């Protein structure tokens, strides 16, 4: 079991409340996955700026002076905003690759959670209520976001094993279920140049979608391809810079409920996660069909 929540806002008036709404949804799903929790927030792009969200098990020493060291390494302005074990580095978008290379040398213990011009990912082991509090998710603003509470079945309960997984710029994926062909697929993706942080099945699905997007497929097409190539149980929710997609395997054992109003499209593993959203009483509520790709883009 795992819990997934997602929110794609159509009404900009709700953007300041994205984090607050996602927090409530995620905490409601605690009993579907108390091991660890994570959230991907698309906080909106700023002209010419990109973001790297990093994580460290020794944030005091790793983050201290890191902005200065990176600025020196790339020769461009860098800001760093610490949030508990994570930090968001903001820098010119064309400097992301250079900064990642510098980061690997300057702070080898630091993990990259996400890169892009809008995405920020925060994830840790622990109860969802503690994880969202640690990162102050309720105060975050944005256009869309995805949250996950994990009950591990496939690999270790670690920070890096928590969802969302991000394997491409501004991309993320969360998963309820388990894949059975991830080892073979991982080998193929490694041959194609993908690198992996964990032994987790979901990371393979995320990398698979990233690879398909790199090959020129749209998000919808990438998820369609996944229906042929990914074997196992899954409900996936996928985020990109502009959109939000959902797909379930053809058997569709893993639960999924969606709600749509003029203001938002929302996803929950259970209806419970959606009950406090504004206007839910009059929302169109439905279950996504098996083996059917849904996505919304702005």
């Amino acid at each position: 079991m795992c819990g997934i929540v997602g929110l794609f806002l159509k009404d900009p008036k709700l953007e300041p409340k994205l984090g607050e709404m996602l927090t409530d949804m995620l905490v409601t799903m605690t009993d579907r996955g108390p091991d660890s929790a994570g959230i991907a927030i698309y906080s909106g792009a700023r002209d010419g700026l990109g973001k790297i969200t990093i994580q460290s098990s020794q944030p005091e020493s790793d983050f201290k002076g890191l902005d200065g060291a990176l600025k020196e390494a790339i020769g461009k302005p860098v800001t760093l905003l610490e949030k508990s074990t994570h930090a968001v580095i903001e820098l010119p978008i064309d400097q992301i690759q250079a900064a990642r290379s510098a980061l690997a040398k300057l702070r080898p213990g630091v993990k990259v959670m996400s890169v892009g011009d809008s995405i920020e990912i925060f994830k840790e082991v622990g109860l969802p209520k503690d994880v969202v509090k640690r990162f102050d998710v309720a105060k975050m603003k944005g256009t869309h976001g995805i949250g996950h509470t994990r009950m591990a079945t496939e690999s270790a309960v670690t920070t890096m094993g928590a969802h969302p997984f991000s394997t491409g710029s501004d991309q993320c994926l969360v998963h309820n279920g388990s894949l059975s062909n991830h080892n073979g697929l991982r080998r193929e993706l490694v041959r194609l140049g993908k690198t992996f942080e964990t032994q987790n099945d979901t990371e393979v699905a995320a990398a698979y979608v990233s690879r398909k997007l790199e090959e020129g497929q749209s998000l919808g097409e990438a998820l369609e391809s996944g229906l042929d190539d990914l074997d196992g149980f899954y409900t996936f929710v996928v985020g990109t810079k502009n959109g939000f997609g959902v797909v379930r395997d053809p058997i569709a054992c893993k639960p999924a409920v969606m709600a749509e109003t003029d203001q938002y499209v929302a996803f929950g593993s259970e209806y419970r996660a959606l009950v406090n959203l504004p206007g839910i009483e009059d929302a169109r509520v439905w279950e996504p069909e098996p083996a059917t790709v849904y996505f919304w883009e702005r």
Partner: protein
Amino acid sequence: MQSFDLGKEGLRALNSALHALKGQTNMTKWEVVNPKGAHAIAAGVDAPVDITVRGSTGYYCAGMNKLATIRVKGSAGPGVAENMMSGTVIIDGNASQYAGATGRGGLLVIKGNASSRCGVSMKGIDIVVHGSIGHMSAFMAQSGNLVVLGDAGDALGDSLYEARLFVRGKVKSLGADCIEKEMRDEHYQILEDLLRRGEADGKAKPEEFRRYGSARKLYNFNIDNAAAY
């Protein structure tokens, strides 16, 4: 009328109060407000009472129901009326996966659509769905009647025993050993009764349905397949 605010009093208090009702009781009318998708609402009731849930429910609402009439003024999550023994459960909205699974008796009415595996392994329950049902419905269904006014998804009635499946709309595909069968007088009578009790008699007529049942080819081992094992 007993009104119960689930948000304030909690699920355990509700189900304890309902379980305390044995046989005949004066407290025959119950209302549950603020269900907010909670699990196991009114599961295990064993008394001839009338319960209305004002809102949508989570997993296993009205599970194992005996004698009670339970109406959900919203949609129901997975496993509604699972293993129902008797009584009536009416869902005004849609039902999620495996509605009425393993049900042994009583009547389950779903006014909207039911998702996958509706009536899986049903053992005597009657299910009336006003809308459509999802894939793998009535998988290994043993007895009882499943009536669907809309369409059925893939693999209807896979590995079916003796349950009767009546579908008015299209069937996407039939499962292993499930075949269409002739409609006889007795079937029109069953349908007429179930449509009336399922609050659907104004929506559909018995003659609009087709019947599906077991070809009974999986009942015995086929010796021609011996080499496969």
